[in-house]
């Protein structure tokens, strides 16, 4: 009975912390800037197709998917990085640590609660951008793109964003500084893109398919493209293990470090 009560308490606290963190993110400008960037990227695709007659004829039925596709990997990387960068560091930088962590809940409830809140803000920002962007595409081009495939493309985008968000969150938890989390995560993205560029067409090309930017790039198409569902499902399953490694391993390692480390700063 006490195990059940304890489990309920842990789950309740974790979700409460996550919910409060998510609520707070709506009051931050960066969330709206991220949505604006995503919409601008999709708008660019629409603009190009509106002005290139030939391309429009060929791609019009798929234009919403192509616009969504334009968000990967850089758009989702930016959203993941900027919305998760203060996941833990915020409480240190804004001196909220003592007041928040003097309440009766554990370190892990705090860690995973903040992680959930960060992921929540990433998911909501992307959802808003995808919904608005898709609606605009539909209105402009008049070709309905199935909501199911938009949803699947959204899941692919979200997975890409979560990949970068989890890495950034972990850096934020370890460094306890938002700026360091942003800079290191951006450096990680640049490094991944650079390595990808260098190995394509060489003997080491297999590395390219394991890079985080490639995985984030491929997942929305793998999930959201109705023209090649069998192939896309295979591609999805092929990339999923790498996504899991990039996402879950840093979280688990950081959770252990966070648990062992002093909560307060030296």
């Amino acid at each position, binding site marked *: 009975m006490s195990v059940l009560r304890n489990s309920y*308490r842990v789950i309740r*606290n974790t979700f*409460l*912390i996550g919910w*409060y963190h998510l609520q*707070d993110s709506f*009051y931050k400008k960066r969330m709206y800037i991220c949505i604006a960037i995503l919409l601008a990227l999709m708008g660019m695709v629409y603009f190009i197709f509106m002005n290139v007659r030939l391309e429009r004829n060929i791609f019009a039925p798929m234009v919403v998917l192509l616009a969504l596709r334009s968000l990967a990997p850089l758009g989702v990387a930016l959203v993941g990085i900027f919305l998760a960068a203060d996941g833990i560091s915020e409480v240190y930088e*804004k*001196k*909220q*640590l*003592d*007041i*928040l*962590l*003097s*309440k*009766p*809940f*554990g*370190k892990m409830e705090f860690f995973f609660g903040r992680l959930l809140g960060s992921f929540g803000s990433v998911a909501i920002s992307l959802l808003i951008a995808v919904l608005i962007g898709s609606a605009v595409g539909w209105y402009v081009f008049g070709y309905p793109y199935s909501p199911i495939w938009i949803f699947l493309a959204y899941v692919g985008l979200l997975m890409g964003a979560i990949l970068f968000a989890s890495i950034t969150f972990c850096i934020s938890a370890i460094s306890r500084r938002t700026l360091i989390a942003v800079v290191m995560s951006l450096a990680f993205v640049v490094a991944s893109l650079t390595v990808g560029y260098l190995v394509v067409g060489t003997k080491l090309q297999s590395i390219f398919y394991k890079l985080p930017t490639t995985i984030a790039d491929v997942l929305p198409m793998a999930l959201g493209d109705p023209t090649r569902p069998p192939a896309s499902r295979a591609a999805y399953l092929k990339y999923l293990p790498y996504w899991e490694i990039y996402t879950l391993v840093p979280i688990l390692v950081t959770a252990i470090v966070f648990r062992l480390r*002093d*909560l*307060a700063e*030296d």
Partner: protein
Amino acid sequence: MNVIETHELTKRYGEFEAVKGINLRVPSRSIYAFLGPNGAGKTTTIRMLTGMLVPTSGYALVMGYNPELEREKVLEHIGYAPDDPGFPGHLTGMQVLVRCARLSGMSRSDAKLAAKHVLEIVGLTEHAKKKTKHYSHGMRKRLCIAAAIIHNPEVVILDEPTSGLDPEYALRMRELVRRLGKEGHTIFMSTHMLVEAERVCTHLGVIVDGVLVAQGEKENLLSRLAEENTIRVKVSGISPKLVQEKVSELDFVKNVELLDGGALLISLLGANPNHRKGYEYRARISRLIHSMGGAVVSMSSRRLSLEDFYFRVVNGHRNGGKNERPEE
């Protein structure tokens, strides 16, 4: 019964030892002032008591629980109001408190009731719907205390509750601390504001450079020092220098200091000048001066203030290791 106990509690950062094997004893229902200069180790100690820092060695017991091993249990029984806390600026005072109450395990309706109650206690009811970014420093301090007591903890730990407050707010804060003490909370309050400690506390602990140099009931500590208290004597018709020499020879006199203006500051051994034996010593000094042909113009004694006590133990520690009362 002690609600807070530490046993050789130590915190080291590399070579630097922030807290050096302290043994705190905070009795139930006391108002314990934890004094010390900046950087003495007060906040580090508090953070070990709240489980935010893990001791390098030794351990603490708060309400019988070890914060290192049973942090959640400890936090169920304590409320902690840190110095200079941060609140999400977009939230109102009420919202902050409801969050704190919910995180302490209360239901939504109980949380709202508790928030209203503590806002009333700290005198912020009028500002409940104001965003915390518009709160003054004093209001933030009070909100912080409200957040600390919202789950009605047995022990309230306050870190520098009056630092940065104007006299009016400082007074209100002292009244609030007294009120909490009267309501049965044990208050553990770190401060370097000696006036507030002297006025509200029942127990004292002084930490200097990570070492707990004095601890106990306030009255006991102060009267212990008063026993070696001083008498200020002004004489006429005789050289003060001569009086200094003769009085120094008396067996109950520890030291005689000649002050600017010719007055003499006489430190007594083993007697409080305000007690019976002290009066006897004063009479003997008076008789001696008369026998030398002089007259006593004035003779006054003063009980040592907390400030005197504090500086004695702090300087005593810094000058001579762990001596509680340094040689003057």
